[in-house]
């Protein structure tokens, strides 16, 4: 593994941003380091030395990752929001919308499984279809979706 590859691997480890942003950042940094190293080789440095110098000019990997995280932190917030959506939508429907309809006299009896099922499917689809630029939310999204489905059965 070259020094540039090691640097990119370390950068990936410290980034903590969504998958698409991470890919873009790594491609851009890779392009920069390769061009920088090529220019240094043209000045007479060895392959290894030119890569080391290119990395040195680029800066500390943790600092670069920290600054990048600061710029792209909203993507993580989106993931948290998306992961909470299924249960939030389902519970708000069950606890707020249905009682409100019942109090207005437009709703009789218990909530029908069909309406609840449709809502749950919608709740599960929304984050998956619209907020695809995140990765760490998937586990939480799946967890909350299971809660939402379980809630339908109660």
């Amino acid at each position, binding site marked *: 593994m070259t020094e540039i590859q090691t640097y990119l691997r370390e950068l990936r480890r410290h980034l903590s941003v969504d998958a698409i942003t991470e890919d873009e950042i790594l491609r851009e*940094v890779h392009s920069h380091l390769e061009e*920088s190293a090529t220019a240094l080789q043209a000045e007479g440095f060895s392959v290894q030395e030119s890569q080391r110098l290119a990395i040195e000019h*680029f800066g500390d990997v943790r600092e670069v990752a920290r*600054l*990048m995280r600061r710029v792209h932190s909203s993507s993580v917030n989106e993931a948290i929001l998306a992961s909470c959506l299924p249960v939030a939508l389902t519970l708000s429907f069950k606890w707020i919308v249905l009682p409100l309809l019942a109090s207005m006299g437009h709703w009789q009896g218990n909530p029908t499984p069909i309406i609840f099922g449709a809502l749950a499917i919608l709740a599960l689809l929304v984050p998956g279809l619209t907020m695809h630029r995140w990765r760490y939310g998937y586990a939480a999204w799946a967890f909350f979706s299971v809660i939402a489905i379980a809630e339908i059965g109660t």
Partner: protein
Amino acid sequence: MSPARDMRKGSTTVLILSLVAERPMYGYQIAKELERRSDGYFDFKEGTLYPALHRMEKGGLLRGEWQVVAEGPSRKYYHITEKGKRALVDVAAEWTTFSRKILAILENVQGVKSGTM
């Protein structure tokens, strides 16, 4: 952080916007151009340039576009947007006023150094 480094950090946006306003550029090119035009004064850690570029892209001042290169990895070229052009005019005017005022005050310092005050 040294005062010089502080000042350079504060000028990143206007410097990037003014370079990209001339023609679309990619990160490495911007870093080298800044270094060349300032005779090495803006020789900062190149990795700190990218968070600034991404922040400006998110803010709608720049638009990034990947271009395939015949040899080597593809490059992300940054184009200035209409919003970026307007911001450049505003920020450049602000910097001109700022530097003029600073220089006016620094004239007194020159007087102190030469012993005329």
